[in-house]
């Protein structure tokens, strides 16, 4: 399975944020999306999630050489700001999400098993989400997106607000699930990108480019990435 993006364009009035995006994302890899502030990473995700109308181009899924439209079930998007329904408790939120995704969840676990997996304390599970901390909300958002098991996972700076223990476990978890998914991961932390991602993609001047590692060692690879980011 592949996610193909062709000639995607997005302007905000005259400002061309995404000029001409051409890329194929493949299943089984984690893509690290790097770009300066305001480069358009979030915009790119919003376009894929159809929060924004695109101005030109297309994106679709290629499954065994067959082209098909991207459906809502295909995509999970974890925003950099946490978004959870504040009137529900964590348990109720999970139940709701499992309910509406029942058909597609393969090995359904119990709700408490999911909480254990995400390291959400027993005593927090029945509290309203409005009283959750920033990081805890982010955890829930992440968990829900993992449970609903979409083919494509978009993660916009997801690990920044997690504590070190959870962040480490999330990384491990992403590595485990990557075989069956396309994971695109935006971050500003170079070490994280190098450590976790199979491919580094740079969004600069409205264009998406892969940075080849070739045979470079990490230091040289870093320099190459920074050079690429600096290009005007």
């Amino acid at each position, binding site marked *: 399975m592949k996610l193909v993006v062709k000639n995607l364009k997005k302007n905000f*009035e*005259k*400002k061309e944020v995404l000029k001409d995006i051409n890329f194929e994302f493949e299943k089984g890899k984690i893509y690290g999306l790097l770009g300066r502030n305001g480069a358009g990473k979030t915009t790119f995700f*919003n376009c894929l*999630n*159809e*929060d*924004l109308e695109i101005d030109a181009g297309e994106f679709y899924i290629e499954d065994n050489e067959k082209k098909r439209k991207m459906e*809502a*079930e295909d*995509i*999970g*998007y974890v*925003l950099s700001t946490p*978004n*959870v*329904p*504040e*009137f*529900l*408790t964590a348990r*109720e939120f999970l*139940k*709701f*999400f499992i*309910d*509406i*995704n029942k058909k597609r969840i393969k090995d359904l676990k119990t709700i408490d098993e999911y909480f254990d997996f995400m390291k959400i304390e027993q005593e927090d599970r*029945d509290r*309203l989400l*409005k009283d959750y901390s920033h990081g805890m909300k982010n955890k829930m958002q992440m968990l*829900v*997106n993992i449970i*609903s098991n*979409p083919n494509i996972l978009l993660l916009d700076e997801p690990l920044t607000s997690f504590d070190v223990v959870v962040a480490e476990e999330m990384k491990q978890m992403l590595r485990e699930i990557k075989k069956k998914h396309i994971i695109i991961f935006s971050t500003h932390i170079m070490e994280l990108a190098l450590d976790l991602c199979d491919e580094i993609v740079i969004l600069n001047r409205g264009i998406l480019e892969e940075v080849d590692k070739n045979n470079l060692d990490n230091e040289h690879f870093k320099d190459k990435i920074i050079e690429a980011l600096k290009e005007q």
Partner: protein
Amino acid sequence: MIESFITSFRLKNTYRVNSIIYSIKQFPIIKRILPNSLYKNKGLKIFANIISILIEILSIFVGKLIYIASMIFAVLSFYETNQTDTFLHIFLFLTLCGGVLNTYMLNPTKDKYYAIVIMNMDARKYGLSNYYYQLLKLVIGFLPFTILFGMITKTPLWIQLALPFFVVAIKLIVMNYSLYDFNKNQKAKNENLPTKFVWSFVAICLLAAYGLPAINITINQTIFLCIFVFTLILGIYSLLKIHNFKDYRKMYKQVLTITNVYAVENNSGTQAMKNTSLKQIELDKNYTSNKSGFAYFHELFVKRHRKILTKAVKKQSIIILAIFIAVVIGINVNVDFKEKTNDILMQYLPYFVFIMYAINRSSSVTQAMFMNCDHSMLTYRIYRTPKVILGLFKERLKTLIIINLLPSTLIGLGLAILLYLSGGTENPLNYMVLFVSIIAMSIFFSVHYLVMYYLLQPYNVNTEMRSSTYKVVQAITYFVCYYMIQIQLPTLSFGITVIAFCIAYSLISLIIAYKYAPKTFKLRV
């Protein structure tokens, strides 16, 4: 200081000009005609600047005109006391109220926040120069109308001229007291959260303003002269103190917090509104749901929002019952009243359009739906599949209609019974029409608000209202309903028309919503 003022004025103007351009841009048609970067468009900028200046000028005069005309002049005829003295009397006491409620300087507004906290301008220079400008606007704004209404009420010229300065002097005295208080306690009070003491003072002044003339007590010109001279002296003393006060920065640091500032500017969906919405959530462990999927989701939403849903309509129902009982008693003791009631029921059904509009909860409920639920849920792609959107839409529609039907049924039944008790009617169909048309209106408003919400989804990610179309629809709804107040039509024909309209409108709009909501119901970016 003048430089500081000019900078701050520019800042305020830029902010306002951009907001004006932003609003203009929000109209779909204009957006299409002028798609390019409007903020740079010269002509438009000039246009927006002119509007901005007009707003500034209007803000000087219009408020004062409305204030004097409605709060003072309009009530004069109710009293038998001397017009000149009563005018003076009410003006004086209302000025005391206004003095303690609004000092300008301590009002946590956005432009102060931008200038002092974000742009780091000199707090003393900024605060003082803008304060003096406000006081100047006060004098200029009041003078034409104290003269105008002074002439109408035959108030002597010297008083006409003195009144604006009296207002300024009171403001200065209160401000000076606030600074003194701050110096002593090192704690600045948020004037938008008046203390109990302030409220009591205001209550006493209001009572004195409107109550005393009713029992033939007013001040006279001599008393005013004494008070005026006294406040003037105190005012000048205060001015000197205020001018020489040093700790403005420290004071503003306390006053201009994010929460204070947003609380003032909460006119159209901001963080403050979000916070108030959040406060509506109640967790009660006993409330759960054994449904599943979005029915489960929705049921929990309803149960956690009892405050704005069921509790609110219960309160309404109790009030309606109370009014009903009062009218029943009235009918039984007073023949005149009985005839009037009958007349109203047969002729004033249009009035009830407005009442039904006013008691309908849908507008605030859809707002809570957005703030507490859809705002976060819409980012999940799965939540935006047609199945979930329409499924939830159905549940919400049911809830809204049922909730609003509780008070409406009471009103409908109540009106029919009152019609019977107040002498009845030749055509029994009237009972039916009265009842059914009230029910129809209630359903209409529920459908209307929900459909508009789903079709126009007016909020953006920051929970700001960003749709001019939605605002226009709201305004039209209001004006149509308000216009109905003045209309008198026979209940039978009007009622049948209303019923037909409500049914047709609801059906058509539901069809449209079903067709388009899956496309239109998303976050604005």
